[in-house]
């Protein structure tokens, strides 16, 4: 048996993933691949207006069309009170969620659902949509976040009063919330500063861009039992949200997740699921709904576009004395921009005494934002890391040396509250500095940029069950959809504890009726939190296996150890017995006490904060303004990489999404507030020929709160790229590009005007 030198047999290796063959042969069932007998199709009618009162909706003609089985509007959903609910990491307001799922009284953005039909064919459903008569009173709209905050801006909600300001304003506005985090004395900090940099930035809303559109099949039977099959980051989330939106008892609804074709946070909410179920409740036929790509862009959540102001000061010897930021994030149609994490992450990589961050959550006539990888953090960190770069330059210091001098370390008190335990930020900086990339020569019109990123990572509720089968193989059941290989990492941890071959662990993701509650896949929590549940379940199985061996040998359980997949007497005192393998204990389990199963539900605490540092080389074409990324290195502290290939994959994928955010991606609206680029042709995500290899370098500073040291890895990699690219462009051209994306026309204009 080979181990990794640290006594580990599987952790840190790269076995083929258990769901792999299904995915390379086309067998894996994703959301849109699921069908049921008697199934019909549902379609949504969407508002063509950015902002309009809905005076009336007439559905009679659509209803009368042969083949139409159900038509619904907001009138078919219970009217819910506006109540803010804290559910784990997420803040919910089911009234707002309900209004986003189906417009009530007002359409709030181009693409907002106003009605839906279910019919026996797509053609009939589409004809029925044409027959629905909606009487709109078009209202002035507002798309830009700064304009939305002005006193005379068109008002989206006449009952929205800014929270977090004293006294509560007596007039409604588009500002849903103000938040503030501060420590120390900002004025004193700036007084100490010998160099100050202050700058405004803007970022555009960008879409998660998962290749699989939203899809759901819902079936409601005559006795009120309901089942939804859908592509989601959390089957328990879907069950909770849909039962609240439709007023169902949770136990009446069962949700089965399909394979999921990418989410990045965008599938942590519901869109089609409650609509398909409401349609099915009316006609008792299974209803399938799949969004077109255009609907995905118009009606599912991008992340916030934002206006960011950052001011930082430092002494001549390179110590940052103060950091201040004002962040204005678009929430879209209803409140809920990721402003909290945006504020908390902004200065987190640095050990600062004087910090003030103020954030605003602002509604605009756009689709409601949804989480997108490290929600909120990339936006504020783009501003801060750009200013850090400028400060270093003004001080004549190396970009990495300047960061090292100010880096958060173990014991650093972060402005957002906690004191960091063991963290790996300085490790990523050291590795960056020593990487050959950092010393490589550059050609004309080329520049190198460095930037760092931070994300908390989260834990939360997870359940895992581990069943020992009669032949000694095992079945591992968990409740978190696997987006990027988590079945592999969970199986590896189970195999590690049991001391068996990873092939003997068969993982499945269970529906809500088959496993205990698990919070959704997101926040980089599954390998950490569900992993902890798996390890504990495996430990429980090992305990039972030792008990069974003790029983067979008629010795004390304390005298039995579990090693390399076998029960052995703990020493010569314990007796002289042939080791018992897992399969031989399993074979006789019926006689020694029944089936052997481990089952653990927990609320994982102690997620390890993670940091990354990226190095990016670009070349700027001064004739066209086009930026080409020539070389990219992404260094990240993973705590412990269970399956390094999938950790690298997360880092590489996040970096390329960030490059798209930096250079190309943006929502473009016309004067009437209609989205002009709802497709992959005009909303251009990076393709293979746009990017180089991404050298992912894993640093391992173990998270002491996890048995193997795991930190989450999925979020951090999207934080540094925007500033790494912008800093590289600044070094190539001398121009500080503060407005994303740094698209060719914008950069060309800057070069022509000032370069």
């Amino acid at each position: 048996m080979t181990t990794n030198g640290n006594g580990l047999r599987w952790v840190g290796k790269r076995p083929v993933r258990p769901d792999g063959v299904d995915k390379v042969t086309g067998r894996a069932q994703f959301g849109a691949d699921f069908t049921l007998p008697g199934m019909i199709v549902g379609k949504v009618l969407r508002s063509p207006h950015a902002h309009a009162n809905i005076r009336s909706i007439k559905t009679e003609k659509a209803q009368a069309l042969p083949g139409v089985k159900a038509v619904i509007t907001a009138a078919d959903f219970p009217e819910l009170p506006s109540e803010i609910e804290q559910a784990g990491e997420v803040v919910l307001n089911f009234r707002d969620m309900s209004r986003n799922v189906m417009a009530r009284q007002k359409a709030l953005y181009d693409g907002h659902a106003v009605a839906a039909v279910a019919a026996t064919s797509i053609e009939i459903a589409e004809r029925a949509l044409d027959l629905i008569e909606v009487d709109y009173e078009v209202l002035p709209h507002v798309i830009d976040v700064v304009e939305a905050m002005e006193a005379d801006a068109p008002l989206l909600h006449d009952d929205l009063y800014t929270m977090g300001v004293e006294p509560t304003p007596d007039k409604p506005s588009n500002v849903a919330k103000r938040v503030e985090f501060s420590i120390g004395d900002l004025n004193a900090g700036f007084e100490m500063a010998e160099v100050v940099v202050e700058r405004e930035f803007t970022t555009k809303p960008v879409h998660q861009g998962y290749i699989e559109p939203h899809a759901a099949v819902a079936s409601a039977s005559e006795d009120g039992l309901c089942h939804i099959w859908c592509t989601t980051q959390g089957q328990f989330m879907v069950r909770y949200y849909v039962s609240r939106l439709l007023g169902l008892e949770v136990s009446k609804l069962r949700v089965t997740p399909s394979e999921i074709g990418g989410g990045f946070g965008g599938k942590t909410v519901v869109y089609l699921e409650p609509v398909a179920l409401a349609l099915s409740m009316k006609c008792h036929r299974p209803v399938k709904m799949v969004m077109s790509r255009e609907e995905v862009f118009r009606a599912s959540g991008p992340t916030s576009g934002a206006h960011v102001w950052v001011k930082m000061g430092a002494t001549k010897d390179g110590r940052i004395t103060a950091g201040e930021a004002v962040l204005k994030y678009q929430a879209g149609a209803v409140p809920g921009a990721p402003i909290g994490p945006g504020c908390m992450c902004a200065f987190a990589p640095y050990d600062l005494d004087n910090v003030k961050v103020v954030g605003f959550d602002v509604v605009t006539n756009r689709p409601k934002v949804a989480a997108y990888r490290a929600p909120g953090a990339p936006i504020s960190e783009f501003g801060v890391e750009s200013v850090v770069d400028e400060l270093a330059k003004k001080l004549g210091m190396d970009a990495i040396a300047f960061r090292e001098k100010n880096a958060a370390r173990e014991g650093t008190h972060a402005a957002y509250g906690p004191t960091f335990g063991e963290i790996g930020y300085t490790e990523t900086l050291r590795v960056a500095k020593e990487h050959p990339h950092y010393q490589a020569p550059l050609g004309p019109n080329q520049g190198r940029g460095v930037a760092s990123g931070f994300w908390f990572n989260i834990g939360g509720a997870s359940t895992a069950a581990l069943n020992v089968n009669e032949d000694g193989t095992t079945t591992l059941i968990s409740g978190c959809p696997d987006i990027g290989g988590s079945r592999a990492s969970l199986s590896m941890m189970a195999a590690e504890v049991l001391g068996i071959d990873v092939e003997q662990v068969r993982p499945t993701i269970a529906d809500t009726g088959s496993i205990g509650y698990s919070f959704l896949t997101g926040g980089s929590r599954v390998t950490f939190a569900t992993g902890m549940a798996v390890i504990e379940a495996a430990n429980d199985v090992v305990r039972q296996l030792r008990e069974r061996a003790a029983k067979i040998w008629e010795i004390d359980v304390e005298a039995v150890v579990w090693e390399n997949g076998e029960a052995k007497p703990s020493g010569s005192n314990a007796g002289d017995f042939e080791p018992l393998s897992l399969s031989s204990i399993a074979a006789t389990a019926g006689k020694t006490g029944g089936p052997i199963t481990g089952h653990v539900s927990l609320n994982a605490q102690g997620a390890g904060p993670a940091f990354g540092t990226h190095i990016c080389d670009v070349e700027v074409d001064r004739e066209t303004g086009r930026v080409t990324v020539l070389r990219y290195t992404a260094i990240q502290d993973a705590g412990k990489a269970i399956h390094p290939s999938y950790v690298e994959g997360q880092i590489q994928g996040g970096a390329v999404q960030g490059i798209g955010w930096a250079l190309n991606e943006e929502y473009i609206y016309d004067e009437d507030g209609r989205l002009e680029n709802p497709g992959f042709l005009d909303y251009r995500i990076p393709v293979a020929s746009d990017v180089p290899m991404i050298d992912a370098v894993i640093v391992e500073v173990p998270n002491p709160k996890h048995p193997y040291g795991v930190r989450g890895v999925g979020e951090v990699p999207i934080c540094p790229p925007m500033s790494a690219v912008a800093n590289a462009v600044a070094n190539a051209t001398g121009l500080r590009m503060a407005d994303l994306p740094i698209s060719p026309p914008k950069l060309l204009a800057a070069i022509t005007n000032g370069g």
Partner: protein
Amino acid sequence: MVKTHVNMTVNGEAVEFLCETKATLLDVLRDELDLTGSKEGCSSGDCGACSVILDDRLVCACLVLGAEADGGNVETIEGMADADQLHPLQQKFLEEAALQCGICTPGFLVAAKALLERNSNPTETEVRYWLAGNLCRCTGYDKIVRAVMDTAEEMKGVSK
């Protein structure tokens, strides 16, 4: 609605069906023939998730009408493995973790197979440009490009 009688060969098997005029080859494969391995990411020819081979040509099945494929020979992801032997590209994608969520994988595999049939020794740039019609949002393309190049390398070794 008038339907067209269509005959074609899919992964070596003769199939015959009535095709609605508007139905694309992708609709036919997925809804008529239950071959859901080809995916729909956009239905506008921009994502490549629906890549199939039609008469030796790499096409987006969402841009071809079902009726147009009458008499054609179609190869999809479902026909890529030979009995229980995975195609070397499929094997390499698994070994090198060239997929995360896997929704883009069928399209990439079909497109990469078409590349290697034309060019058994592609450079990194050739691989990147050939695959530029296939979107992947998870991997950043690194491991996909490497897997394709490593497969080419390995297949050369075998055919020598």
